[in-house]
């Protein structure tokens, strides 16, 4: 398991890095629009009416953005919590902790893929 983790480190770090970069960027934009701009009436609610949102989400770009939005923050979170666990003295249990956290990220990512494919 430890060797596996070591071997997969580059891809995990890449997903984590993109989680920071793309995930944070997209998530911030998402929260600004859906959580603030629409409720405050800065953007008319019809702009994200079901039909429009569905059309946007079913385009290829829309699907990719949604996938990134759902999956990348999971990797960012998993990796951060893993580092945190080590900082709090969990270095010995790192393999098990990392395995569980990345498993959650993998399952979440697969679910996100399944969801956007069905859109």
């Amino acid at each position: 398991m430890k060797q596996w983790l070591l071997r997969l480190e580059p891809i995990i770090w890449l997903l984590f890095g993109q989680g920071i970069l793309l995930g944070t960027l997209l998530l911030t934009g998402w929260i600004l629009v859906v959580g603030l701009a629409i409720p405050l009436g800065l953007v008319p609610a019809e702009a994200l009416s079901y039909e429009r949102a569905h059309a946007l989400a079913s385009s290829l770009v829309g699907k990719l953005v949604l996938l990134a939005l759902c999956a990348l923050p999971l990797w960012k979170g998993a990796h951060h919590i893993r580092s945190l666990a080590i900082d709090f003295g969990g270095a010995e249990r790192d393999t098990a902790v990392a395995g569980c956290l990345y498993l959650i990220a993998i399952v979440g990512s697969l679910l996100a893929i399944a969801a956007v494919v069905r859109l």
Partner: protein
Amino acid sequence: MSGSKKTFVITRFDPDRDEAPRQQSYEIEVDPRWKVLDALNHIKDEVDPSLSHRWSCRMAVCGSCGMMVDGKPSLTCKDSLADHGDTVEVAPLANFPVVRDLVVELEGFLDKLKQVKPWIIRAKERAVEEGTHRQSPAEHQEFKQFSMCINCMLCYSACPVVANEPDFLGPAAIALGHRYNLDSRDEGDHERQEVFRGEGSVFSCSYANECSEVCPKNVDPAAAVNQAKFRAVIDWATSFVVPRGGEG
């Protein structure tokens, strides 16, 4: 120059006598122009010859005088006493086994330096008659910053990952390996990638950036570590396309 008094609370440890490190205070007259190292040398020469500490060049070049001063990793020959209060705490560098008083064990660190193969590796050595390897100033600039490390180990005592994962290669060793990977004369990238992605993985770094904060030579090891991660990712990704020859 009128002197003033300062109290130095120094961590002492004699492996033959002490079970655990203890603290000893010395109140001495100091010259305001002194560095922390000057005060330690004064204590050793005039007050207590049993005090052990390392130093050599007194000009921030040899890297041997690193200690914790007031809880922070510091190069004591560069650290002005004027920047500290009336009581100054001096302890051995954190994250290293202590040999005696302020002297720490270097073996583990030196072994990590060796692991990254800090020398120029060529796929095929070139004959002397063929002349030297030429390098342009721009190519030299690529790695110059990372070659300024004086191995003072302050970055290891500042690094939270080193504290928790003793196998982690650590800032200075990764910066040194990366320095050779960036050298236009070197062809040992793949050999070092194995080390960078092995037990002491560069990916263990959680980018706390403490190493670059404490580095007295502005090497910016955190930048080296993160560039090394990116290179490791590229190397890993291209390994699927371009098969690696001559491994092992």
